[in-house]
């Protein structure tokens, strides 16, 4: 009965439109008057709300560049607050996909939510574009034909640091993160390349999420006296960790390395404590690429504040939609054709151009960055065109 209803729903407007065409002899094809529906599933409340906002801004900027119409069709946004609660993810996804019949669903920020979304979008007639959540499995074991990611996998952001750390002369390292997926995946990826290069992870510390009382762990690090520390923290936890690390007097003595999120959007709150922290990531605010400069100028003009990584990833999700729908000349009903286009596209991203792997994760360059004057400054390219191994993906 599902199909019958759907058929009915698409037949009716088509008939109406056909009548209109015969009257007005418009040049547009039947479905060109329908908006392209873009569901936006981001956290607008709770801990991740800031990231949700940036992502949405970036997404809207990309589509605004197209005049909010792609191939003659207007773009309609349907925004839903995930509250970063995984338990709500399936329900909201179902609302966007089954009720609103969104062509694209952009979201989420949080990996747990991503898992719930993937589960409910599997086999449905919508395309999901993940603008942040880095869970390896999203384009690994759980990869789906209709799921793309414009951000990164956790693996990509931490793997290059292992080799870099060893090359910097660090042999014994303590790793530390929150005890959750993103953190553990980052530590594992770091461990993989660091031990392959010949280094040794002397201790791995997992802090219960979202605890931010780090004193006892820092004391422990001080007693181990490793060559360096590699950590994964993001957002508020990252701010707190970097400040505490400095306040305990460890910064000058034991170099602090991290996955890029440690200093992404947090350096202002961290203040001088973040100076000199070295991280790897697929983007840096100061990246000297023409596209990045123009993107950041426009973003600041539109929203009155500087762009960040999350804005870039949202922007690329928008570019991806625009480019794909343009390529199919406005036809969004044939999702298989859309997906095929998306797989072939090269996205001209502010982070540098990238295209998608078989598992639909960006093949992208990872930069080695250092905080200088509160800015993540690129020291060098850590690994060029790095592809996630997509372990467990059968695409």
């Amino acid at each position, binding site marked *: *009965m599902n199909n019958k209803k759907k058929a009915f729903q698409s037949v009716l407007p088509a008939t109406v439109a056909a009548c209109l065409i015969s009257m007005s002899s418009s040049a547009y094809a039947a479905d060109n008057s329908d908006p392209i529906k873009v569901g936006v599933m981001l956290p607008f409340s709770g801990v991740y709300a800031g990231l949700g906002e940036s992502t949405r801004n970036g997404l809207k900027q990309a589509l605004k560049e197209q005049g909010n119409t792609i191939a003659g069709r207007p773009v309609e946004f349907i925004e839903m607050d995930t509250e970063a609660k995984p338990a709500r993810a399936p329900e909201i996804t179902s609302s966007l996909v089954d009720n609103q019949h969104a062509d694209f669903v952009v979201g989420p920020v949080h990996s747990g939510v991503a898992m719930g979304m993937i589960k409910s979008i599997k086999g449905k007639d919508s395309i999901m574009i993940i603008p942040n959540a880095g869970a390896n499995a999203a384009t690994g074991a759980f990869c789906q034909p209709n799921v793309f990611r414009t951000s990164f996998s956790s693996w990509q952001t931490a793997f290059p640091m292992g080799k870099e750390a060893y090359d910097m002369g660090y042999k014994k390292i303590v790793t530390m993160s929150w005890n959750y997926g993103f953190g553990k995946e980052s530590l594992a990826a770091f461990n993989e390349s660091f031990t392959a290069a010949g280094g040794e992870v002397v201790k791995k510390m997992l802090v219960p999420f979202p605890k931010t009382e780090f004193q006892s762990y820092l004391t422990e690090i001080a007693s181990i006296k490793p060559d360096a520390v590699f950590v994964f923290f993001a957002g508020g936890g990252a701010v707190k960790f970097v400040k505490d690390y400095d306040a305990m007097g460890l910064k000058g003595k034991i170099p602090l390395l991290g996955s890029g999120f440690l200093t992404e959007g947090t350096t202002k709150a961290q203040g001088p404590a973040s100076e000199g922290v070295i991280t790897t990531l697929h983007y840096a605010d100061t990246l000297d690429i023409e596209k990045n400069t123009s993107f950041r100028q426009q973003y600041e003009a539109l929203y009155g504040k500087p762009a960040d990584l999350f804005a870039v990833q949202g922007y690329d999700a928008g570019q991806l939609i625009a480019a794909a729908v343009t390529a199919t000349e406005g036809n969004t009903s044939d999702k298989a054709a859309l997906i095929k286009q998306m797989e072939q596209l090269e996205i001209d991203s502010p982070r540098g151009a990238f295209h998608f792997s078989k598992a639909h994760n960006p093949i992208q360059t990872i930069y080695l960055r250092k905080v200088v004057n509160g800015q993540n400054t690129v020291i060098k390219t850590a690994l060029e065109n790095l592809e996630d191994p997509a372990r467990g993906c059968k695409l």
Partner: protein
Amino acid sequence: MSIFSNKSEKIFIYLFFVIGLFIPLFLEGNTFYINKLSTIIILAIFVMSLDYLVGRTGLITLGHAMFYGLGGYIFTILAPEYEAVNFWIYTFYVMLISGFIALIVGLIVLRTSGIYMIMITLALAQMTFYFFADSVEYGGQDGLFIYVKPETSIFGLSFLDLENETHFYYLCLLSLFNCFAFFKVIMNSSFGRVVDALKENPDRATALGYNIFHFRLIAYVLASSLAAYAGYLFALQFGFVNPGMMSWDISATALVMALMGGLGSIYGAIIGSFVYEGLHYYIEHLTEYWMFFMGSLIIILVLTLKKGFAGFLNDLSGGKGNE
């Protein structure tokens, strides 16, 4: 003696289940609304079990979501990953195991009462939350997936296909009806008589020779395993479980729903769940700051509608109830 406490309850229950029975015919094919209704009905079962505990037994808990989450986890952990198991058999397992856990937990928390019980249930729920959130084998913060939904045959006959949203909806509706009937039966039973007594006046019940601990424990186990059943349905609906199901705000929200509906009225749990979720859905589409309006609404309700919507309906119909 009628199973209903008053006229408004009778009218509401008849109306609700008749409408519930036929509404999928009008929503034909719109899986979103059917899913949404199923979700709210599952929530209503959860809220009802909490309402029984808080409103009928007088045991206030802020950790009821622990059992909601456990229901989902027990199934996901027990069932083989790539094999359809029997729904009814696993319903039995889920309720049995969660009931057993509730028995152990009850032995601890029921030693306390009032505000202490509120806090210790909260703490135990947090502990369970962290147990699953930190675990490696149970998926940590990201939770676990259910790859194959159970089949529902009884003696080889299968009426329901859980992959079909409408079928699943009817399963939820049936469950809610059973749950309601079950609570009404035990409320009117000899057991219910003692529970009524110990809720109003535990000291007197003791003086009359009742070991109130035993009665509380049984009520706690019953309510907890029904909460687990609701969590089990929730896990089946979308095919995954997550520690977030146990988080304390789920318990708190459920309490708000029970209160909105009218504490202790049991059928009020249905009203509360639908009103809260309806408002949430509506306000969320209006503004990003929906929490502000929900918060204000809760405060206004607490200060004005002391008996919730069930009490309000009863006052409207002029009934006093025969309890």
